[in-house]
C-alpha cells in the first residue's frame, strides 16, 4: 500500500497483516506515516496504490454494514462539552444496530463515578477514555486507536493502558498507533515499526530488532574511572571480570550489565531510516 501527496510520498509501499484478536502496534516517530496509514484503513483517505482489505472489504468502498463492525478513536478527538458521559455514549449507541449497553461501556472504560458529569468537566485522561468508550459502543470487532495516550501524564497513561489491555480480553482486534516504545511493549502482541513511510522492523516486543544478538554493555567503576565494555559473550566477560576481582578479594564498584532496551533498538532503527530518507531527499 502506498500514498503520495503531490510529489511527496508519505507511505512508500508497506505490507502488513493484522490477525484477529491481537493487539497490533504500529509504532513510529511523528510524521512517519502512521496516521496516513490508519486513516486509509479506516476509509477516511484514499490510497495512491496497492491493495487494502479490512474485515474482508476495501475501506474506500465499504458501507454501513462494515462501519457497524469497526470502532475508531481519532488522534485528536474532542467530545461534545455539554453532554454527560452517559449521554455521549447513548448518542453514539443510537448510531448502531446492536449497541453494547451503556452501563457496560462505562464500566469498561472505568468512568462509573463520572457517568453523569459533562465532558467538559472531565480530565484529559478521562475524556480520552470516554472517547474510547464511544468507539466501543457499537461493540466492534476491530478497533483503531490513533495515539491514544499522546500528551498524557503517567497515571492517565497507566489508566488508558488498563482499558486497552482489557480490550484484548474481550477478544477485540486492536490496531494501535503510537510513538511510545513502552506503550507498544506493554500492550501489543506484535509490533511493526514505520519510519519515513517505510517499515523498518516487525516482530513481537521481545524479539524486535533482534535484540538477542546485540552486544551487551557492562559498566563498572575502577579506580575512580567509569569503564564500559561491549561484549557479545557476556558470560565469559563477566566470568573473567568477577574472577579477577574475587582473586584480589575486591568488590566491583557500580557493576551494571545491560542489554539494549527496546527504546534503544527503536531509536536506532528510526534514526538510520531518517538519515536514509534525508539522503534520498537530497
Amino acid at each position, binding site marked *: 500500500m502506498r500514498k503520495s501527496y503531490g510529489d511527496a510520498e508519505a507511505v512508500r509501499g508497506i505490507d502488513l497483516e493484522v490477525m484477529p484478536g491481537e493487539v497490533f502496534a504500529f509504532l513510529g516517530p511523528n510524521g512517519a506515516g502512521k496516521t496516513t496509514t490508519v486513516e486509509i484503513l*479506516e*476509509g*477516511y483517505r484514499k490510497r495512491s496504490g496497492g491493495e487494502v482489505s479490512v474485515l474482508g472489504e476495501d475501506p474506500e468502498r465499504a458501507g*454501513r*454494514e462494515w*462501519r*457497524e463492525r*469497526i470502532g*475508531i478513536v*481519532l488522534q*485528536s*478527538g*474532542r*467530545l*461534545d462539552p*455539554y*453532554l454527560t458521559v452517559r*449521554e455521549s455514549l*447513548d*448518542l*453514539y449507541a*443510537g*448510531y*448502531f*444496530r446492536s449497541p453494547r449497553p451503556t452501563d457496560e461501556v462505562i464500566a469498561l472504560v472505568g468512568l462509573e463515578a463520572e457517568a453523569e458529569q*459533562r465532558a467538559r468537566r472531565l480530565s484529559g485522561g478521562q475524556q480520552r477514555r470516554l472517547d474510547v468508550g*464511544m468507539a466501543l459502543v*457499537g461493540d466492534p470487532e476491530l478497533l483503531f486507536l490513533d495515539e491514544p495516550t499522546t500528551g498524557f501524564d503517567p497515571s492517565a497513561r497507566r489508566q488508558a493502558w488498563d482499558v486497552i489491555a482489557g480490550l484484548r480480553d474481550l477478544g477485540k482486534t486492536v490496531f494501535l498507533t503510537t510513538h511510545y516504545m513502552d506503550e507498544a511493549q506493554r500492550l501489543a502482541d506484535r509490533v511493526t515499526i514505520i519510519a519515513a513511510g517505510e517499515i523498518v522492523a516487525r516482530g513481537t516486543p521481545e524479539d524486535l530488532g533482534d535484540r538477542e544478538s546485540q552486544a551487551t554493555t557492562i559498566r563498572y567503576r575502577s579506580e575512580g574511572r567509569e569503564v564500559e565494555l561491549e561484549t557479545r559473550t557476556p558470560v565469559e566477560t563477566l566470568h573473567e571480570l568477577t574472577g579477577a576481582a574475587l582473586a584480589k578479594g575486591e568488590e566491583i564498584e557500580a557493576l551494571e550489565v545491560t542489554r539494549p532496551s527496546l527504546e534503544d533498538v527503536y531509536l536506532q532503527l528510526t534514526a538510520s531510516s531518517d538519515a536514509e530518507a534525508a539522503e534520498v531527499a537530497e
Partner: protein
Amino acid sequence: MSALALVAHQFRYDQKAFWRNPAAVFFTVMFPVVVFLILAVVFDGSTVKVDGGVEATTYYVPAIMSLAIISATMQTLAMTLVITREDGRLKRGRGTPMPAWVFIAGRIGNSIVVALLMMALLGLIGGVLYSVSFPWGQLPELLLTLAIGAAAFSCLGIALTAAIPSQDAAAAIVNALLLPLYFLSGIFIPEDELPGGVIDFANHFPVRPFFEAFFAVYVPGAGNGIAWHELGIVAIWGIAGLLLAIRFFRWAPREG
C-alpha cells in the same frame, strides 16, 4: 432505526447541547430579546412611514423576529458546524454507520425549533408589552414564509462554513457579513430613515427580502399575504447556498 428516527435521535442530543451552551443561548435567544426591548423603549410612540405609517414597536416585532430567525439558522449553523468540524466530531461521526446527512439534519431541526420558539417569544413580548397583535389569521402564510426563510438561511449557514477556516474566525466572519446587512436592511434603523439607495442595494441580499416578506404577513394591512417576489429572492439565495454547501462542505478539520 429508520432515517427519521435517527434524525430525531440526533436532534434530541443537539437540543440538550444547545440549551446547555451559554454562548449559544445568549446570542440566539437573549440577544434578539434585548435588542427588541431597547429599540422598543427608544422608539416607542414614534411612527415609521411605511405602508401608510405603522407604530415603531409594531415595526420592530417582525424586524427583530427576522433577525432572530436568521440568527437561529444561518448564524447558529455556521458557528456550531465549524466548531464540531474543527473538534474532529464531524469526522468521527462519519466513522460510524450513521449516514452523514443525519448530523446536518439534526442541526437544521435544532435551528428550526429555536427559530419557531423565537417567533413565539418575540410575538408574546410584543403582544403583552406593546399590544402588537399576532397575525393568527395569516398563520399558514406566516409559517410558510418562516419555512422558506429558515431553509434558505440554513443552507447559507452550511455553505458559509466552507469559508470559515477556524473556530476563532467563525463569530467574526458571520457577524461581519450579517451585522452590516441588518443595518442596511432596515432591521435596526427604520427604513424611512435610510436613503433610498441603501434599501435598493440591500434588496440584492437575502436579509432585506426576507424581512419584507415577513413584515408583509405579520403586520395587518402591510401586504396581502405571501410576498412571492421577495420570497423568490430568498429562495434563490438558499438554492445557491445549497449548491455551494454540496460542493464545498468539509467534514474533516483543517490539518494541524
